[in-house]
C-alpha cells in the first residue's frame, strides 16, 4: 500500500463521520453556515475517498452522493472512485457505487465510462452470485448513462436477461434497459429486438408484457416512421382486448394511435374495443387515453367521436376536479375547426373557463378558442376577447393579445377578410392598459401597410388616432406602436385627410417622452408630409397651368391662389379631395419650422440630422420663385420648381414592398463569382466610383408611380439616377419583381364571405360570447378580401434543420428494426409504403430469411384469420401489384414483373409455410399490407 503523507490515515477511517452524522450536522446548521458545513464535509470526503479501506471509501462516496443529489454539488471528479468500488465482493459497496454512478455519470461527459464495461458485463452475466440486488443497479447504470459504445458492447449481455434465462424479477428491468440501449445505439437492434418481441408472447408474465409494451410504445412513438412495427399489431390487438391492466392498455392505445395513421383498416378494427373501454372503464386515465386515441386517429368514425365528445363533456363538467377540466379543454382543442360542433356544444363551459382561477385552465380555454377561429367568426370572437382583455389581469390580458396577434397574423393574415376591422382592432389592442405586445403590433401595422394596398386609408386613420392621443406617449410599451403609426402616416400620407392636424400630432410637445429613435421616425414622417403637401400644391398649379393657360392671369388674380379659379380642372388632377391652398401650406411650413427648429440642436444625432433635413427642405421651398410668385400674383414659368418636385417625388414615390425571407436563396450565384474567394479586394471595389456597365440583368421597379408617364421625360435627377446606378450594379441582389407581381395576383381575389359586422352591440361582458357560435356561419359577402401580397410559400416560414440529426438516428433504428422484423439483411430505405417496400426487398433477399419472429401460434383465432384471408386475398394481390407498378416505374415492363412476382410468391408459399401461419393467425392480420404478401 503506497501511503504518502497526504493519504488518509487510520484515524480518518476510525473516526469517519457516517452519512447520518453528516445529515444531522447539515440539518443543525443554519442557512448561513450550511455552505461552510458542506464545504467542510466535502474536504473530508475528498480525503476519505482515497482511503485504501473500501468501507471508508464507500461511506465517503455515499456522503458525496447525498450532497450531489440534494445540494447540487458536482461529483463528476469522483467517477473513478465509484468505478473502484464496483468489483467489491461485499454487496453494499457495489450498490453504493452503482447508485453514485447512475446519479452522476453522463453519457457524453464522463470519460471514464468505458472502464465500467467489464464490470457491468460481469454483473450482468447469469451466475448465482449475481443476485437481483446487484444486477438491478447495474441495469440502471446501463439504462441511464450508457453511451452508444457501451450500449453496443453490452447489448449481447442483456439478451439472456431479456429472454428470461436469469432470475425473473430482472426481466422487465432488462427490457427497459434494452429500450435505452436501442435508443442510443440502433446497431444493437439485430441482437435485442427478437428477444423483445418474444416478451410480448402469451406465455410471458404480466409484468414482462407490461414492460415490453412500454418499450414498444416508446420505440413506436419516437420513430419518425413507425411502419416497421406494423407486423406486431396482432400482439397489441390481443392485449387491447384481453388485458385488464390500465397502464398496459394506455400504452397499447398509444401504439395504435401511431400505427392507425399508417393503416386505415387497423383503425376500423380497433374502434370497437376502444369504444368499449371508453364506455366501461372507471379509470379516468384510461378513458382520457381512449379519448385521445379516438380524436387523433379514429376521427373518421363518427360514433366513436360522438362517444368521446360525450366523455369530454363529463370531464368539463367535473367542477371539483380541475385536472379533468384542464384535460377536457385540451382534448377539445385536439378536434380542430372541422369538429366545431363539439366545441359548440360545450360553449358555455369553455367561455366560463376563461374566468377560471387556474391560469393553466384559462390558457387552455384561450388556445381552444383560438383554434376554433375561422374566417367567419374571427371578427366577433376577437372583438370580444380584446374587450375582455381590457378588464382581466395583466398577464392574461397579454396572453390574449398574444394569441389574437399570432392567430390573426398567421400565414400572412389568412384568416382576415376585413382588414379595416383588423387594423382598428390593432389600434384597440395598443390602447389596452396592460399591453406589452407593442413590438408585434408594430410589425403587423407596417407589414399590413406593405402588403395590403386597400387597407392603407384605414391604416392611416388608425395611425392618426394613435398619434393624436397625448396619453399614449407616456407608455413605454407603446413606443414601437407609435413609431409604426408615425411611419405609416408618413409613408401613406396621400390617404391622410388633415395634414396639419397630423403634423401637429407628430410634433406635439409630449413627443419628448419618446426615445430618440422613435422621435427620428416622427420627424422623418413630418418630412414626408411636408414634401407631399408641397408637391401636391405645385402640381395643382401646374395642372391648372397646362389646362387653362389662356385665362391663367385671371386665375391668379384671385386672392385665394389657384383653388377657386378652376376647381373642376384641379380636382381631376390631384388625388386629394380637398384642394390645397397656399395659405394652408404656408401655415404648415411655418408651424413645422418653429417646432422643428429647436430640434436641430438636439443631442441625438438621428433626431438632429432629420430635423435639419426638414428645415433644409423648407428653406429650399421658400427660396423658389414659384412660391413667392403666387403670393405676389405674378406668374412666370420656372423650370427649377418642376425639377425640385420631380426630385422629391423620386425620393419617395417608390413603394416599399415586403421582402421574402427566402430572397437570398433565390439569388443565383453568377458563374464567375467564387463565394469563398478572399474578400480583400473588396476595398478596391468599394473605392471604385465609376459605374461599370453591368451585364444583362434587367430590373424593373415595383413602384406604382402615380405619374409614370412623366418619369420617362424627366431630366436627369440626382437621387433617382444614383439609385438606378446602384441597382444596375447590385441589381442581382434584389428580388426579381415580375415574379412577385405574378404571385401576388395568384392570391385568390376572394369572393369570400365577410361577416356582417358584429351583431353584438357593445358587449361588455365576456360571457356574452356564449351567445355566439364557434360554428362557421356563411354570411353574405359584403366586400371582397383585398389582395395581400405574398411572396412565396416560404414567406414567414423558415425550415429548421435542427432535428435532422435526431431523425437520422431514429431512421437508423427503424431501419434496423425493420430488418429484424422482416428478416432482411439489406439496408432498407425508410419508405412509408410498406408493402411495396417489402415486396421489393423480399425479391432481393429471398434466401436470407432466417428470422422467425412471428411464430406465436394463436389457435383460437386461426379460423377467423383464414376466412378473412380468403376473402381479401384477391383484392390484396391486386393492391400489391398496383403498388409495384406505381412504385418503380420504368424498371421492367409490367408483364414481366407480375410474372416474376407470382413465381416469387409461390416460392414463398412453399418455403415459409410455418412463417405464413404464424403471421396470419391472429385476427387482425388481414388488415396489414405487410402480411398480404404471403396470402397470394
Amino acid at each position: 500500500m503506497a501511503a504518502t503523507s497526504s493519504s488518509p490515515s487510520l484515524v480518518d477511517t476510525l473516526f469517519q463521520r457516517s452519512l447520518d452524522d453528516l445529515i444531522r450536522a447539515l440539518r443543525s446548521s443554519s442557512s448561513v453556515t450550511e455552505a461552510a458545513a458542506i464545504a467542510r464535509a466535502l474536504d473530508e470526503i475528498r480525503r476519505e475517498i482515497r482511503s485504501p479501506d473500501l468501507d471508508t471509501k464507500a461511506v465517503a462516496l455515499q456522503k458525496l452522493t447525498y450532497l450531489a443529489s440534494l445540494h447540487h454539488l458536482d461529483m463528476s471528479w469522483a467517477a473513478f472512485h465509484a468505478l473502484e468500488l464496483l468489483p467489491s465482493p461485499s454487496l453494499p459497496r457495489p450498490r453504493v457505487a452503482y447508485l453514485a454512478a447512475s446519479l452522476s455519470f453522463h453519457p457524453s461527459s464522463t470519460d471514464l465510462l468505458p472502464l465500467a464495461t467489464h464490470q457491468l458485463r460481469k454483473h450482468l452475466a447469469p451466475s448465482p452470485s449475481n443476485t437481483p440486488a446487484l444486477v438491478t443497479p447495474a441495469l440502471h447504470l446501463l439504462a441511464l448513462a450508457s453511451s452508444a459504445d457501451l450500449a453496443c458492447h453490452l447489448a449481447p449481455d442483456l439478451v439472456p436477461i431479456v429472454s428470461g434465462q436469469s432470475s425473473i424479477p430482472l426481466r422487465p428491468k432488462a427490457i427497459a434497459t434494452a429500450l435505452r440501449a436501442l435508443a442510443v445505439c440502433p446497431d444493437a437492434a439485430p441482437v435485442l429486438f427478437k428477444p423483445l418481441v418474444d416478451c410480448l408472447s402469451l406465455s410471458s408474465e404480466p409484468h414482462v408484457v407490461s414492460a415490453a409494451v412500454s418499450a414498444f410504445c416508446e420505440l413506436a412513438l419516437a420513430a419518425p416512421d413507425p411502419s416497421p412495427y406494423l407486423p406486431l399489431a396482432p400482439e397489441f390487438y390481443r392485449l387491447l382486448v384481453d388485458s385488464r391492466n390500465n397502464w398496459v392498455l394506455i400504452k397499447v392505445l398509444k401504439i395504435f394511435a401511431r400505427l392507425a395513421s399508417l393503416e386505415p383498416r387497423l383503425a376500423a378494427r380497433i374502434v370497437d374495443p376502444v369504444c368499449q373501454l371508453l364506455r366501461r372503464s372507471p379509470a379516468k386515465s384510461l378513458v382520457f387515453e381512449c379519448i385521445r386515441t379516438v380524436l387523433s386517429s379514429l376521427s373518421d368514425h363518427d360514433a366513436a367521436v360522438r362517444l368521446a365528445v360525450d366523455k369530454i363533456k363529463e370531464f368539463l363538467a367535473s367542477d371539483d376536479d380541475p385536472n379533468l377540466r384542464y384535460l377536457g379543454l385540451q382534448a377539445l382543442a385536439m378536434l380542430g375547426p372541422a369538429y366545431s360542433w363539439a366545441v359548440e356544444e360545450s360553449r358555455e363551459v369553455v367561455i366560463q373557463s376563461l374566468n377560471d382561477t387556474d391560469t393553466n385552465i384559462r390558457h387552455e380555454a384561450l388556445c381552444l378558442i383560438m383554434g376554433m377561429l375561422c374566417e367567419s367568426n374571427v371578427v366577433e370572437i376577437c372583438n370580444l376577447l380584446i374587450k375582455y382583455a381590457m378588464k382581466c389581469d395583466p398577464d392574461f390580458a397579454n396572453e390574449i393579445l398574444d394569441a389574437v396577434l399570432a392567430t390573426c397574423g398567421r400565414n400572412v393574415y389568412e384568416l382576415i377578410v376585413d382588414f379595416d376591422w383588423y387594423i382598428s382592432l390593432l389600434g384597440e389592442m395598443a390602447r389596452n392598459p396592460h399591453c406589452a405586445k407593442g413590438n408585434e403590433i408594430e410589425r403587423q401595422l407596417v407589414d399590413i401597410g406593405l402588403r395590403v394596398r386597400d387597407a392603407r386609408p384605414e391604416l392611416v386613420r388608425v395611425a392618426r388616432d394613435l398619434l393624436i392621443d397625448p396619453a399614449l406617449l407616456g407608455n413605454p410599451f407603446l413606443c414601437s406602436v407609435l413609431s409604426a403609426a408615425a411611419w405609416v402616416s408618413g409613408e401613406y400620407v396621400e390617404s391622410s385627410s388633415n395634414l396639419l392636424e397630423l403634423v401637429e400630432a407628430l410634433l406635439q410637445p409630449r413627443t419628448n417622452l419618446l426615445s430618440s429613435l422613435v422621435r427620428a421616425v416622427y420627424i422623418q414622417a413630418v418630412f414626408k408630409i411636408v414634401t407631399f403637401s408641397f408637391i401636391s400644391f405645385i402640381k395643382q398649379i401646374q395642372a391648372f397651368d397646362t389646362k387653362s393657360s389662356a385665362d391663367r392671369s385671371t386665375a391668379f388674380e384671385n386672392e385665394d391662389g389657384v383653388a377657386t379659379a378652376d376647381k373642376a380642372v384641379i380636382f381631376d388632377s390631384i388625388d386629394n379631395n380637398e384642394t390645397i391652398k397656399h395659405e394652408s401650406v404656408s401655415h404648415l411650413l411655418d408651424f413645422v419650422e418653429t417646432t422643428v427648429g429647436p430640434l436641430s440642436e438636439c443631442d441625438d444625432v438621428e433626431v438632429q440630422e432629420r430635423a435639419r433635413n426638414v428645415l433644409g427642405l423648407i428653406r429650399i421651398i421658400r427660396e423658389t420663385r414659384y412660391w413667392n410668385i403666387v403670393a405676389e400674383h405674378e406668374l412666370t414659368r420656372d423650370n427649377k420648381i418642376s425639377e425640385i418636385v420631380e426630385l422629391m417625388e423620386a425620393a419617395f414615390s417608390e413603394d416599399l414592398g415586403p421582402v421574402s425571407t427566402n430572397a437570398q436563396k433565390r439569388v443565383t450565384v453568377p458563374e464567375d463569382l467564387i463565394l469563398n474567394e478572399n474578400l480583400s479586394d473588396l476595398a478596391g471595389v468599394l473605392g471604385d466610383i465609376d459605374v461599370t456597365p453591368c451585364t444583362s440583368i434587367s430590373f424593373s421597379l415595383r413602384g406604382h408611380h402615380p405619374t409614370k408617364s412623366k418619369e420617362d421625360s424627366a431630366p436627369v435627377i440626382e437621387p433617382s439616377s444614383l439609385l438606378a446606378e446602384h441597382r444596375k450594379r447590385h441589381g442581382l441582389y434584389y428580388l426579381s419583381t415580375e415574379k412577385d407581381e405574378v404571385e401576388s395576383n395568384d392570391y385568390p381575389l376572394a369572393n369570400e364571405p365577410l361577416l356582417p359586422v358584429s351583431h353584438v352591440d357593445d358587449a361588455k361582458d365576456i360571457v356574452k360570447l356564449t351567445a355566439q357560435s364557434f360554428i362557421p356561419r356563411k354570411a353574405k359577402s359584403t366586400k371582397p378580401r383585398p389582395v395581400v401580397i405574398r411572396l412565396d410559400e416560404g414567406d414567414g416560414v423558415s425550415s429548421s434543420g435542427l432535428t435532422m440529426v435526431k431523425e437520422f438516428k431514429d431512421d437508423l433504428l427503424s431501419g434496423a428494426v425493420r430488418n429484424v422484423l422482416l428478416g432482411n439483411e439489406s439496408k432498407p430505405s425508410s419508405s412509408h409504403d410498406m408493402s411495396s417496400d417489402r415486396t421489393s426487398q423480399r425479391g432481393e433477399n429471398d434466401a436470407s430469411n432466417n428470422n422467425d419472429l412471428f411464430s406465436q401460434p394463436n389457435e383460437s383465432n386461426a379460423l377467423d384469420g383464414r376466412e378473412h384471408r380468403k376473402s381479401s386475398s384477391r383484392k390484396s394481390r391486386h393492391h400489391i401489384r398496383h403498388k409495384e407498378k406505381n412504385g418503380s416505374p420504368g424498371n421492367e415492363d409490367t408483364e414481366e414483373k407480375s410474372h416474376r412476382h407470382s413465381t416469387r410468391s409461390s416460392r414463398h408459399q412453399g418455403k415459409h409455410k410455418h412463417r405464413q401461419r404464424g403471421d396470419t393467425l391472429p385476427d387482425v392480420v388481414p388488415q396489414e399490407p405487410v402480411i398480404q404478401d404471403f396470402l397470394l
Partner: protein
Amino acid sequence: MIHFVILFSRQGKVRLTKWYSPYQQKERSTVIRELSGLILTRGPKLCNFVEWKGYKVVYRRYASLYFCICIDPDDNELEMLEITHHFVEILDRYFGSVCELDLIFNFHKAYYILDEILIAGELQESSKKTVARLIAAQDSLAETAKGEAGSISNMILQSM
C-alpha cells in the same frame, strides 16, 4: 417517457432527484430552480399540470412534499398522477406512514424503491407487494454483508 422525477419540500428544498434523460449538473440546478419556482407559487385546488419548455410536469403535493414528474406532451398526465400515488403508497408501506425526515435520512433507500418502480423512465412494477418484497430482500442481503464487513477489527485489518 418520464424525463425526471423531483421531490422537493414546501420550502423548495430538494429531497430526491432522478434524471432519466441526460442532464448536466448545471442544467439540473436550473431545472430544479425553475420548476420549484413555478410549482410552489401555484395555489391549492388548481390543476396538477404545468407546461414547461415544451414538456409537461405533473406534480402533486403530499403533506409537505411536492412530487414532480416531467413527461413528454403526448404522455398521459393522469397515469403519472397514479404512478406518483403508487410510489407514495409504497414509501408509506415501507417506512410506516412516511414523512419527510424518513426520506432525508434514508435517501438511498428512497432511490432504491424508486428504482424498483421506474427504470429508464418506464413504469416497471405495478404491484405494491412485489416491490415491498424485493426491497426487503435487498435489505436483508445488505444487512448480512454489512455484518460481515463492519466490525472494527476488520477495518483495522484491511487498512494495515
